[in-house]
């Protein structure tokens, strides 16, 4: 290896480089394939369960449209109209192929297209959820990092205490406190309502700040806690000793080695947190009077509008699945050793 000819070396190097890029794209494909292999069954089971719900519930559009004292003939006619007289699996298949084409059917209550209805609320909910994620990740990151770097000091204990307090506050408690203090008490923010970003970024931010804050507490707590413990864990790894012995500075060891490995579990936590975030939007949208996706879910469920509820669930699962897909891709980028697991 000491006396290789230059041409040979450069050719080899090119070969190695090509192999490396192929390696990288193959890894991305592998991650995608593995995630799909996990999420396709998830999607199938979840949609099947949501669909089976209707049969179990015994709810029917006839009841909603005709009232309690309808004749059996009238009920049968309406159910046939909605295709509810077909065998269960046929109904499921019809509905499922519709879902694959992006059609979620129409509402039992007013016959409106459910995809459109959900699309209207989704903008609100996604604005709030994204903002909540940003707040949660940034604040959680800072708190977790500082606590890990100053562990067993008063700063660490203060942060850990703060994180404990906010982690036991359910979103609706945070929401009420925020409304009471910042909206009603000081009048800093509007207590309810929504203004789309097109009508001005300022008002838009003002309206989504409180709900986003309410949602973000949980994320802050989880990110901070996970980051703190995985950073502390990473600091106990031998490779930190190895890097120290090689004479790397503490700063470089933190940013180049510890953070990189500590980030993995934190990202994974974020992926697991996302469904809860989507779920909690029901509560915050109720508190802050936002006509979002969660509010729509709640209203439809209370009204017994089964297709609407199914549509909401499908969309929420799709959201969770795509978010986790992104997380997995980032994870694969940050730590290639996470080959096992996901």
């Amino acid at each position: 290896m000491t006396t290789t000819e230059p041409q040979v070396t450069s050719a080899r190097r090119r070969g190695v480089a090509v192999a490396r890029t192929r390696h990288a794209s193959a890894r991305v494909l592998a991650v995608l394939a593995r995630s799909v292999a996990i999420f396709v069954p998830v999607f199938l089971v979840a949609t099947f369960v949501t669909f089976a719900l209707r049969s179990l519930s015994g709810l029917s559009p006839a009841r909603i449209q005709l009232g309690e004292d309808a004749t059996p003939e009238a009920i049968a006619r309406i159910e046939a109209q909605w295709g509810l007289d077909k065998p269960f699996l046929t109904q499921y298949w019809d509905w499922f192929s519709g879902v694959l084409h992006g059609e979620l059917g129409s509402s039992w209550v007013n016959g409106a297209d459910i995809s459109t209805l959900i699309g209207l609320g989704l903008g609100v909910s996604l604005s709030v959820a994204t903002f909540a994620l940003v707040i949660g990740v940034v604040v959680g990151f800072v708190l977790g990092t500082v606590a890990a770097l100053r562990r067993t000091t008063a700063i660490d204990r203060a942060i850990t205490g703060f994180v404990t307090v906010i982690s036991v506050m359910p979103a609706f408690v945070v929401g009420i406190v925020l409304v009471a203090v910042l909206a009603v008490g000081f009048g800093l923010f509007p207590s309810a309502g929504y203004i789309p970003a097109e009508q001005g970024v300022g008002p838009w931010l003002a309206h989504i700040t409180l709900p986003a804050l309410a949602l973000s507490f949980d994320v802050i707590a989880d990110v901070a806690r996970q980051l703190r413990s995985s950073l502390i864990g990473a600091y106990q790894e031998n490779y930190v000793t190895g890097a120290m012995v090689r004479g790397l500075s503490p700063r470089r060891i933190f940013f180049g080695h510890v953070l990189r490995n500590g980030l993995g579990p934190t990202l994974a936590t974020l992926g697991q947190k996302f469904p809860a975030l989507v779920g909690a939007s029901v509560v915050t949208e109720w508190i802050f009077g936002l006509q979002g996706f969660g509010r729509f879910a709640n209203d439809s469920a209370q009204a017994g509008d089964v297709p609407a509820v199914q549509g909401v669930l499908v969309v929420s699962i799709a959201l969770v699945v795509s978010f986790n897909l992104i997380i997995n891709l980032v994870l694969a980028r940050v730590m290639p050793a996470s080959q096992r697991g996901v």
Partner: protein
Amino acid sequence: MVRRVLALTSGRIAVTILALIALLALLGPWLAPQNPLATSDNALAATSGAHWLGTDYLGRDVLSRLLDGSRISVLGSLEVALVALVVGAIPGILSVYLGRAFEWFTLRIADTLVALPFLLFAIAVIALLGNGITQAMLVTGVLVSPLFYRVSRAATLAVARSPYVEAAIVSGASIGWIVRRHVWTKVLPPIAVALAQTIGVGFVIVSSLTFLGIGVQPPEPTWGGLLASDLGYLSHRPWAPVAPALLIMVTVWACNLLADAIRDVSGEAGRALANDHKARANRREAAAGPHPAGGSR
């Protein structure tokens, strides 16, 4: 293990709080000074001798409603945890022994349940299956059961495939002894931790659901419901949400504290923690003592 948990300050605090809350749930309805459902003209009253926590928008005594509502909130979260334990732990343990097909199937179900935004799903299922507290608890229990599935499966796997159990079998230890010595000590602590966590999580979910008015019929008081009715009158009684909110938070905190205490006293982490305390104490002693160098004794 109970004794070791109680040896920790955090464990003692957690157990005390939880015992008080449980007592509240058992005795709350009798302790209530007034009828929690009786309305009066004295609406939205401030704190007074007659109404320690004031009255709500229908003039009902808030303290009575709080005490009366404790039963549903507390028993509800216990029910959630027990349902989750049964639904999760049994397939979790069986998944190690019943072959690959069962394993694959249960793993996919667990993945699915984890991926569901469970508050949303719980609302949907409860609304469709009929609005009742039992449905609410069952559905919530099933939705949080993957935690038990994972924990019990991991513990069983660790025990079933661990070299030390094999070694014990090879060296002729009786099954009973192995179960007592290895399986029990490995499986029980993580399940206990998960149980404490789930009671906390269940508490949040039950409160969230009752906050939205799901799972209970309107006049019946719950802690979540109290908060919901306070929301509309914040400008009149800004302090009203404090009592139920604090109760919810303290209960959840005590559950988490208990989970941490159990985790701390079991396994490797526990030993490291004890060492840490000892070393710090020793160093302080050495620094304070007459021999500041602290060397050999």
